[in-house]
């Protein structure tokens, strides 16, 4: 066994749990937790989008909710206003968010650090207020709801639709899983390694002939795509789009999930999101100031486990195997 195998085992365990959750969860907790779990999976993609930028290319974005919002409104407007079917609306949402990432990224990735963070907030605020005020299209404060079109229909009678909870759950799992698989492939590619060099040392990266700007922009567009898929799924999940989910508060939450889960680890965001949403669900009813607890957790994690829970886990696994193999095991560095 190598650390790599242990990590793969961990991924298999998460995947198995996710696939069997509709049977496992009701045994222990109320059935609505299946729904909450699928919502967590969607939100984890938003955290993953933050993580792709912060954990792998070193860009801290506080504006990923913008692309989430584009995916969400793309689906809702596509169905309610344009009359698109399920798949075209899904595609429209993702296209909208990816295009938005390309346009805003074109300007944003010229900057780094706090300048980059600020410009991402500014972009997301601009479109948040646009969505609020453009009532005929977005529904403004009320949001925009729609009736779910079927995924596939055969004739008049039979149709597969997300109105079936099982179909909805597995559709979300499939799409979220596909996004993680895509990110996994990209991060293990030459491009993924180039991402890390830009995070580690952008001057050295340029000096060995890497186009740092294009690498950052590519990462930004992929992150926008992932956030867009999350937003589109969330619109399907709630049959609804609302500007509330585009506010920078939502972006900030995603940053917290990513950092607690472990920036720079593929599945860290799932861990962070699951943990913090569970906490929210359990505590917010009991104690309205539950965010203090979240704050304390963030401080403790940032001080004692700067690489988040994911990093803590990798460190533990590596240490155990370093001992047994005299430090000859390759470190995966969170690929």
């Amino acid at each position: 066994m190598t650390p790599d195998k242990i990590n793969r085992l961990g991924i298999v365990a998460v995947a198995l749990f996710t696939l069997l959750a509709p049977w496992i969860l009701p045994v222990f907790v109320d059935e609505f937790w299946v729904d909450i779990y699928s919502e967590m999976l969607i939100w984890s993609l938003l955290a993953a989008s933050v993580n792709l930028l912060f954990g792998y290319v070193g860009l801290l974005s506080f504006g990923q909710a913008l692309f989430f919002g584009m995916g969400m409104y793309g689906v809702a407007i596509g169905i309610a206003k344009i009359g698109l079917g399920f798949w075209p609306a899904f595609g429209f949402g993702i296209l909208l968010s990816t295009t938005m990432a390309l346009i805003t990224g074109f300007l944003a990735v010229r900057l780094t650090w706090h300048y980059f963070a600020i410009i991402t907030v500014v972009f997301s605020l601009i479109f948040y207020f646009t969505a609020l005020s453009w009532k005929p299209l977005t529904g403004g404060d009320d949001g925009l709801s729609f009736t779910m079109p079927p995924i596939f229909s055969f004739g008049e009678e039979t149709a597969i639709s997300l109105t079936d909870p099982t179909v909805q759950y597995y559709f979300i799992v499939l799409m979220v899983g596909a996004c993680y698989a895509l990110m996994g492939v990209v991060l293990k590619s030459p491009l993924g390694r180039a991402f890390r060099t830009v995070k580690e040392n952008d001057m050295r990266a340029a000096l060995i002939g890497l186009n740092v700007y294009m690498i950052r922009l590519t990462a930004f567009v992929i992150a926008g795509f992932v956030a867009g898929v999350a937003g589109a799924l969330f619109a399907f999940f709630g049959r609804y789009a609302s500007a509330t989910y585009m506010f920078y508060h939502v972006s900030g939450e995603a940053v917290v999930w990513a950092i607690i889960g472990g920036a720079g680890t593929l599945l860290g965001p799932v861990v962070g999101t699951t943990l913090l949403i569970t906490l929210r669900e359990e505590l917010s009813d009991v104690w309205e100031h539950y965010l203090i607890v979240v704050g304390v957790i963030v401080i403790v994690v940032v001080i004692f486990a700067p690489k988040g829970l994911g990093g803590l886990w990798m460190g533990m696994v590596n240490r155990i195997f370093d001992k047994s193999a005299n430090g000859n095991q390759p470190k995966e560095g969170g690929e």
Partner: protein
Amino acid sequence: MSPTQILEIEDIEKHFGGLAALDGVNAHVESGKLTAIIGPNGAGKTTLFNVITGILPPAAGRVKFLGQDITNKPVHEISKLGLARTLQIKSVFNGMTVRENLWIAAQSRDGVFKPFQRASASSRANQVADQLCEELGLTQFANQEAANLSYGDIALLEIGIALATEPKLLLLDEPICGMGPAETEQTVEKIRNLAKRIDIVIIEHDIEVVFEVSDEVIVMAQGKVLARGTPAEISTNAEVRTAYLGDDDDA
């Protein structure tokens, strides 16, 4: 252009506020010779390297590499033409393994915008990385993070990263700065060996080392080229002695 001139620097000017860091620098580097740039602190040596490699845009003047005008070209494009450099403050990818450091530098020649290919399947980059690990004596650290290396090994790794890009010209900015005597000797030996197959320009403060390894010396002072010649010529140049080496007999 004469075919032996790999690098030509024409009337380069660079100002920082009111200070003229480079005040009309004219110089060239001949292929097949190890050229050293010396000069007191603030002479503009590193600024000149920054202008050549595209990190700083010059206020005036031109830089030609292999006969091609590279003034104002982006840093990564200049690297792709075959110009590599190390930095005065050692600069590697700290959080990546030694092997990954060399691998990405080699892969930069084949392109990195390959999102659906496995990095570990890039056989050429793998080969270059392994070969350089061996050549630099870093094989035992190949899978360790660069941050864990000793100072001397980081300096070696930085040279290795530059070599992995298969440069035609290598600029070394104070490669032995901060090294002990044993490390210095090893590094000087490596530089001398490298000079047999790659053109090298070196900025160095250690005059002994400069006179030992270089074929050609360029002396800079106050943003200008003060003198140029073989080590023997430079050591007897009266102007250089007053401006830089001091009037004593220790040079």
